[in-house]
């Protein structure tokens, strides 16, 4: 009825009101469905262009804007039923006025800010030195990052016997990641064992001869006892020395094991099972990313300029007020113009409180 009346006398249409014969749900739903399909298509195109190289890179924002305007048009036509018919003139005029204001606000802002940026002198010329250092990322505060990877190389040459810790695996500190079959190490152990046995045999012999000599009562035997005691005095320390050497050789067997240096994740593995490797070969056998540690780079305050690699410092973090943290200086690069040098600080991060992107500042040396 209302639709009939509006058709006859051309009354104004309420914005957003149904235009179609509304008694028929399905015919009305067709319009919405068409709008939905068109919008979905335009949305899918926009997401597709963002991640693709189908368009020339710098033109992608323009293409996306065109798709957005098209989709807004679809929404206005199919969801809000805005038409160009005379009964909808007031609605369209209001929208046109709104669009003008939106264009003035956004276009005007961009235009003005663009020209203000153009007319600004370059930052380096106006900024005082302290600010300049900050602008180039070398200020007293540093941004926390994940700790840099730790390389671990084989300490001895040999053939890789057992292998674990694939790339991406979570490892714990001291976890066995690979064993190397090093002939030199096992030989040293075997040699040490035979030397020890020989020395022990000599001592047993000396002691037996001494017992025999003591049982005799002749003067010649007395002289032999003296000589035998001297021999025993020489041979007994040699047993101890052989034992020591054997222990050392056994300890060196540990070098054949490659262990994870910290809790973390395996980033790279450059050895395969059965492969022969040289001692301290490049690239290193493993690369570990320390899991529970973070790093940041910041300049040392002037009062702490004497600190060097290995020293511990206390630092604070902007986002965590009232908390102090302790870290170790990994390296210090030379100072630039008066200030202290650039220090790389690594800190343990239990509970993952320190997150990448937070700003840290070195405060004092640790007690």
């Amino acid at each position, binding site marked *: 009825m209302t639709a*009939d*009346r509006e058709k*006859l*006398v*051309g*009354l*104004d*249409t*309420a*914005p*957003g*009101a*149904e235009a179609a014969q*509304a*008694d*028929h*749900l399905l015919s009305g*739903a067709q319009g*919405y*469905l068409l709008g*939905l399909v068109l*919008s*979905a298509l335009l*949305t899918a195109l*926009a*997401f597709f*262009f*963002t*991640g693709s190289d189908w368009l020339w890179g710098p033109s*992608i*924002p323009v293409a*996306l*804007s065109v798709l*957005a305007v098209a*989709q*807004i048009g679809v*929404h*206005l036509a199919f*969801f*809000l039923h805005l038409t160009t018919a*005379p009964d909808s*003139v*007031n*609605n369209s005029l*209001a*929208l046109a*006025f*709104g669009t003008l*204001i*939106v264009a003035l*606000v*956004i276009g005007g*802002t*961009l235009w003005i*800010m663009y020209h203000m940026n153009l007319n600004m002198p370059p930052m380096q010329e106006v900024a005082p030195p302290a600010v300049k250092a900050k602008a180039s990322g070398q200020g007293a505060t540093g*941004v926390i990052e994940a700790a840099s990877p730790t390389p671990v190389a084989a300490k001895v040459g040999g053939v890789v016997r057992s292998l674990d810790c694939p790339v991406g695996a979570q490892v714990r500190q001291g976890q066995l990641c690979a064993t190397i079959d090093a002939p030199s190490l096992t030989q040293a152990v075997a040699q040490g064992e035979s030397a020890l046995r020989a020395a022990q045999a000599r001592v047993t012999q000396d002691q037996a001869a001494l017992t025999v000599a003591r049982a005799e009562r002749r003067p010649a035997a007395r002289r032999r006892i003296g000589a035998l005691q001297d021999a025993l005095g020489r041979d007994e320390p040699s047993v101890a020395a052989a034992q020591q050497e054997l222990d050392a050789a056994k300890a060196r067997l540990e070098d054949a094991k490659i262990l994870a240096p910290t809790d973390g994740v395996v980033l790279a593995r450059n050895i395969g099972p059965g492969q022969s490797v040289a001692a301290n070969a490049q690239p290193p056998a493993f690369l570990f990313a320390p899991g529970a540690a973070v790093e940041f780079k910041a300049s040392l305050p002037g009062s702490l300029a004497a600190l060097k690699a290995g020293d511990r410092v206390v630092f604070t973090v902007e*986002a965590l007020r009232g908390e102090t943290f302790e870290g170790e200086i990994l390296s210090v690069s030379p100072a630039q113009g008066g200030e202290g040098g650039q220090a790389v600080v690594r800190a343990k991060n239990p509970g993952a409180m320190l*997150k*990448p*992107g937070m700003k840290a500042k070195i405060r004092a040396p640790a007690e």
Partner: protein
Amino acid sequence: MTATATVTLPRAPGLQAGAEAPGHGEGGPASTLVIVAYGFWIFLISDIVMFSAFFAAHAVLQMATDGGPGPRDLFDLRRVAIETACLLLSSFTCGLSALGSEARRMTWTQAALLVTGLLGLAFLFLEMREFASMVAAGAGPQRSAFLSSFFALVGCHGVHVSVGLLWLGTMMAQLFVKGFRADIRRRLLCFNMFWHMLDIVWVAIFTLVYLVGVAR
């Protein structure tokens, strides 16, 4: 114009019967529906003008990351795609509810409104999770001018969606209690326009903030 005589029109007092030139005020005063909807239309356009200021601020500050995380580090386009789908589908079901109320079909209308509300809730939930993960990663609104403008713009839209959901629940209750009264239908029409407008603003947000931010 003989046809005009066959229907009874609301007329302004003093207007001569059979006056010529119908439409645009001359066919009598507009119906309450048209007046209310037009007034709300003007409000929506002014709301969009307000959004345009946030858009302008974000466009200017998009590069001002202060060495912190930028769009590429922060935005998960898959989540944005799901959010977009939720809002687009809810706009569609909202339209279906308008059809239902036009045909006085209570079950149809309520069901369409309910689905609209659920999709809106899903959108809001995803947005909250995005905000929470960003703040937890140290990329909250205080981190850089870029992030301040991002949270202001997208958060403002999120507040609109939240208010829209409250309105939606109220409308479902009113419709249930009072039925398809003329005033209830006017409110439903206004709610429909509001919800479609939110989707239009979201189209601009996902394009200019998320997609252009990542493509840049």
